């Protein structure tokens, strides 16, 4: 029983880290632009398909497929941001929700058209397969890799936001757009760059997710709910919040489905509603 608990915690944490990579970009862009981008999960799906295709068709190794997924999602997202999304920044949350959900529908249909409705398999390199055995516990190597990746990304994000010029500008713009503009910061450009980075991370998350949760055209929709929970619970614009929210959700989800499979999802949603009622701005939200 104890061993099970450790493994459930480990698997849950790994799943949470996956959710973190998928969601943190949305948290930052939401905090920055107040743009409710429900298509964030669709960029994750795009990353997944790019990675799978790059490996299968072009023979990319896994470690090269990951940055490719990142770049593809970042590039496509910035095109959308510059041409369409920016027109909706002042359009009210309902229009943002509707437009981006429309985009999710369209992307799911496009994915069906190109790839069919089936699951896309991914072949991991040997060194990421199998598991590490400690006593009677078996830790999946890929999950260890996932946790390491997420921690590295967290470190990069925190360092980037706290210590670099771009980070300082992003933080200034999140805190107060008008003041930032007054200080001569090109908020418009910051938007585009942040959006690209955030969606790129989603793309990376999508690529990393294939091994754990699979990939089919419903990905953008299915994981949207998880992503939104992470963002809403963690609080907008907070990297720490997303990290904690994702870890909680991942562990809660895996533990719930393991120990009380009948009502596992129910508990997650209950937790979501309860947290938002006590703290409408999320655990780490400031505004």
């Amino acid at each position: 029983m104890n061993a099970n608990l450790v493994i459930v915690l480990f698997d849950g944490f790994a799943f949470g880290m996956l959710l973190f990579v998928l969601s943190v970009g949305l948290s930052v862009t939401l905090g920055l632009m107040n743009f409710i981008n429900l298509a964030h999960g669709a960029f994750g799906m795009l990353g997944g398909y790019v990675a799978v295709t790059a490996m299968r068709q072009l023979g990319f190794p896994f470690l090269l497929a990951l940055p490719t997924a990142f770049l593809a999602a970042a590039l496509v997202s910035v095109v959308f941001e510059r041409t369409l999304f920016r027109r909706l920044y002042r359009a009210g949350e309902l229009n943002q929700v509707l437009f981006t959900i429309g985009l999710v529908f369209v992307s799911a249909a496009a994915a069906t058209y190109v790839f069919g409705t089936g699951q896309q398999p991914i072949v991991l390199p040997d060194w990421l397969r199998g598991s590490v055995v400690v006593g009677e516990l078996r830790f999946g190597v890929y999950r260890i890799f996932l946790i390491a990746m997420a921690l590295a990304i967290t470190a990069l994000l925190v360092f980037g936001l706290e210590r670099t010029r771009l980070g300082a500008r992003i933080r200034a713009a999140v805190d107060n757009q008008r003041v930032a503009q007054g200080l001569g910061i090109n908020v418009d450009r910051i938007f585009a760059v942040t959006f690209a980075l955030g969606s790129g991370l989603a793309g990376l998350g999508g690529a990393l997710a294939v091994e754990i949760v699979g990939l089919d055209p419903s990905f953008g929709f299915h994981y949207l709910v998880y992503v939104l929970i992470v963002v809403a619970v963690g609080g907008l614009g907070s990297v720490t919040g997303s990290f904690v929210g994702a870890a909680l959700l991942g562990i809660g989800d895996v533990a719930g489905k393991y120990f009380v499979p009948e009502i596992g999802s129910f508990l997650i949603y209950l937790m979501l509603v309860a947290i938002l009622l006590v703290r409408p701005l999320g655990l780490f939200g400031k505004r």
Partner: protein
Amino acid sequence: MSNTTTTAIDPAAWIRRQSRWSALEVAFWLAALLPFYFFPTYLMLASQIAVAALFAISVDLILGYAGIVTLGHAMFFGIGAYTAGLLSAKAGWGEPISGLLIAGAMAGAVGFVVSFLIVRVQHLALIMVTLGLGLLTYELANAMSWLTGGTDGLRGIDIWPIFGLFRFDLWGYTAYSYTLAVLFLGFLAARRIVNSSFGLALRGIRENVRRMPAIGSPYRRHLQAIYTISAAIAGLAGGLLTQTTNTVALESLSFQRSADVVVMLILGGTGRLYGAVLGALVFLLVRDRLSGVNPQYWYFWIGLMLMVVVLFMPKGILGGLTRLAGRTKG
């Protein structure tokens, strides 16, 4: 200054004019009778459209008039559907009209409780709470399969003839008569609500919620009231679906249904009731046509329609038509 600037207009008459029935409205409802004579093979579809229209009206009341964005209203639709279904399947009570009223009352009661939570949150948190509650109800119904039948759906529903006279027939004559009558009554109620002083207060909330306290308005109580009313109407719609199809699927609580109804409303145009009816009509007709061709890509068209509506027709089809009519006139 005094009264010299007061013009001759009679303010009460002007207010009354805002809610007067137009010839177009009368024609619209008369046209709703056409399927009986011209499309008798489509009566079941017409009945489903009426159900969806009533559901969309319930959402219009909170989204279009009071500005509450919801992605979880299927919760109340489903509660109504299951209430009507369980009444017959488990309690053996198949009388349709009382069953429908109980379904509406049940959904309204749950809506009243939920309304206390809804008024506490705004913006993203509001969307997430409605979404979360919707998903939560779905999971709950799924987990309680001993009661709801789970993914197999609720079976064994037998609805008695309306007034003990009109059996639900295979072609849907009774079904469409029944759903159209309830839709019309629901519409009348909604129309009265939006044209009341309370409806004015709702528009005030939508236009500028920050100003409401400054004119002494207990606007949260208003929001709770309309949320409860809206939940009850959604419950009626759900109950109608059960009674006209003799089955309840888990799908009646799904996120898909919550999203679809918002799509219908946006498509038709918010804040004008007829937008809800028109949106339901277009949505279901198009789906009926397209599903024959390639059901997989139905949502491609929905998605595209949504994006186009948001970018180019922010007031929906009805808003676009109104503008067009205004342009040709003057």
